[in-house]
């Protein structure tokens, strides 16, 4: 079973396992499956399509009753308006910076830790893995006051550094867990061969092991990026300047108790989804192999 996990596994490359099915099905499936796919895609996209349509109508029409799917009056300029706002662009830049940096730090911290715990035995190994699991369970909502305090003591409130570190720390556990499983699945011979060739431990990791864990790395990247991109409570508490707020916090400004711009809120939210989808589309084919390497032996 270790052999299975060692190559990047994707469904694309595998032939369909032949199973006993009635003959007619094989002909119908060419139409039925894509149709099913369309329905599934629509089911997942439907609310967000509504959001797009809400961004394309005047704000006061959004909460009109009875509601209509298509706008009664179209207002096409909102996306442009939002993209043209300095404040919005700043929030977008902050989100990109924070999510990107957190992901990078998570990789730097989790790869050595996962490698070591997967491939070697040492005292405290189980304790570390348990610690990682426990860390996974804390919700930043309950810890936000303490987080604020410690960065305030370190005079780091309102610094990018603070939220980048926080996002990295809270997503570390998942990355370690995933990579750990992946490293475990690599057969010993690969490593021993590298050592015979004179590689140091670090060299082995860098040149031999890492490439084989690409799906795991990609998984960790996607999870961390999304988690950091959508983080709200800690960013709200730590970031003071409007320009340094990420998108999640910034777009709250569009709708207050006193003035509501639902159209801009939704336009901004749609734009906020785009970078994540782009990232995902770029690395998606590695993802499928990554997620269960923690448990497949």
């Amino acid at each position, binding site marked *: 079973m270790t052999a*299975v996990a060692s190559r990047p596994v994707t*469904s694309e490359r*595998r032939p369909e*396992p032949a*199973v*006993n099915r009635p003959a007619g099905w094989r002909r119908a*499936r*060419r139409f039925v499956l*894509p149709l*099913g*796919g369309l329905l*599934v895609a*629509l089911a*997942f*996209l439907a*609310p967000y399509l*509504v959001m797009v349509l809400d961004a394309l109508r005047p704000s006061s029409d959004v909460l009109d009753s*009875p*509601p209509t799917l298509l706008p009664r009056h179209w207002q096409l300029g909102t996306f442009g308006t939002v993209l043209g706002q300095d404040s919005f662009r700043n929030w977008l830049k902050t989100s990109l910076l924070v999510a990107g940096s957190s992901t990078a730090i998570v990789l730097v911290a989790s790869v*050595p*830790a996962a490698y*070591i*715990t*997967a491939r070697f035995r*040492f005292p405290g190994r189980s304790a570390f893995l348990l610690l990682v699991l426990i*860390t996974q*369970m*804390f*919700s930043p*909502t*309950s*810890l*936000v*006051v*303490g*987080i604020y305090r*410690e960065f305030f003591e370190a005079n780091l409130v309102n610094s990018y550094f603070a939220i980048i570190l926080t996002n990295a720390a*809270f997503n*570390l556990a998942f990355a370690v867990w995933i990579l750990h*499983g992946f490293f*475990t699945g690599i*057969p010993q011979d690969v490593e021993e061969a590298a050592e015979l060739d004179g590689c140091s431990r670090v060299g082995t990791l860098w040149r031999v092991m890492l490439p084989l864990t690409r799906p795991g790395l990609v998984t960790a990247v996607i999870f961390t990026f*999304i988690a950091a991109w*959508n983080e*709200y*409570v800690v960013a709200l508490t730590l970031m003071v300047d409007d320009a340094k707020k990420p998108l*999640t916090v910034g777009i709250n400004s569009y709708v207050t108790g006193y003035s509501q711009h639902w159209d801009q809120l*939704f336009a901004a*939210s749609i734009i*906020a989804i785009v970078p994540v989808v782009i990232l*995902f589309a770029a690395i*998606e084919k590695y993802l*499928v*192999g*990554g*997620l*269960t390497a*923690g*448990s*497949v032996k």
Partner: protein
Amino acid sequence: MPANAPRRKPGRRGRLPFWTALLWLSPALVLIAGVVAYPVVELVKASLGTYSITGLRTGSAGLGNFAKVLHHPDLGTVLRNTAEWVVLVVAITIVLSLGLAQFLSKQFFGRRVVRWAIIVPWAASLVITARLFTLLFDFYHGLIDRVLVALHVLPHPVDFLGDDHWTMPSMIVVGVFVSLPFTCYVLLAGLAAIPDDVYEAARIDGARPWQLYRQVTLPLLRPALLVASVLNIIYVFNSFPIVYTLNDRNPGFRHDTSITFMYKLAFKSAEHSVGMSAAAGVFNVLGILVVVLAYLKLVSWREAVR
């Protein structure tokens, strides 16, 4: 390799001295100790203090906050809601994801696009999705009522967010919706890792599709199901935006889970007590810890993960 090399555990090389290991672990440890451990300590300290409504610490409370939380009249409701919320969202998500993953593991035209479409609820922030659904579920300006009445599924509009019978189901729908994407991918990966020979062998034995699924696929998916369920339990338990936003218009604690209960104790309820909230926070962490560890024990974690 020398013929008499000692047999080792699969995949693991050998022992490391403690300090070498520590070096490799240090970036991770520094992050955890620095950023996660300190706030945990602060949380515990806060739970042991009395605070004025302004947030000013006015003294020590001993275990008083914990007692107050345990004696809170709405605690039973909150715990019931939490159990309902976690169990139903996780169970429904897993069942639906099994089907979805099975579907997406088949080759068909347009599969790539469908896979991208599934990612969107995950890519969007929970706060935004929750706000969107608050609009969609509204009695007057919500599309869901309009569509369901037009399709004659409902005889007349339902107050999804305000009617006490419908609030939890509405929350669960949203919870499942945002949990499906990544669960689906976890199971998809699990399916992909099952080798073909297994199916071949079963087919030769004359297995029918449903038998195949129950006796071959599901057991081999066990590791993936484990990952999916543990992650889901943790994420759903800790999920704040959905429960909070959908209940924004509902007074009291009637539909709150333990996470929103904790938040409201500090800022929105008449108690307005940071100390009580911190105590609830400590209970929350202990609670989820117990649940996950029990669950792992139940499914014999140690065998599945080495």
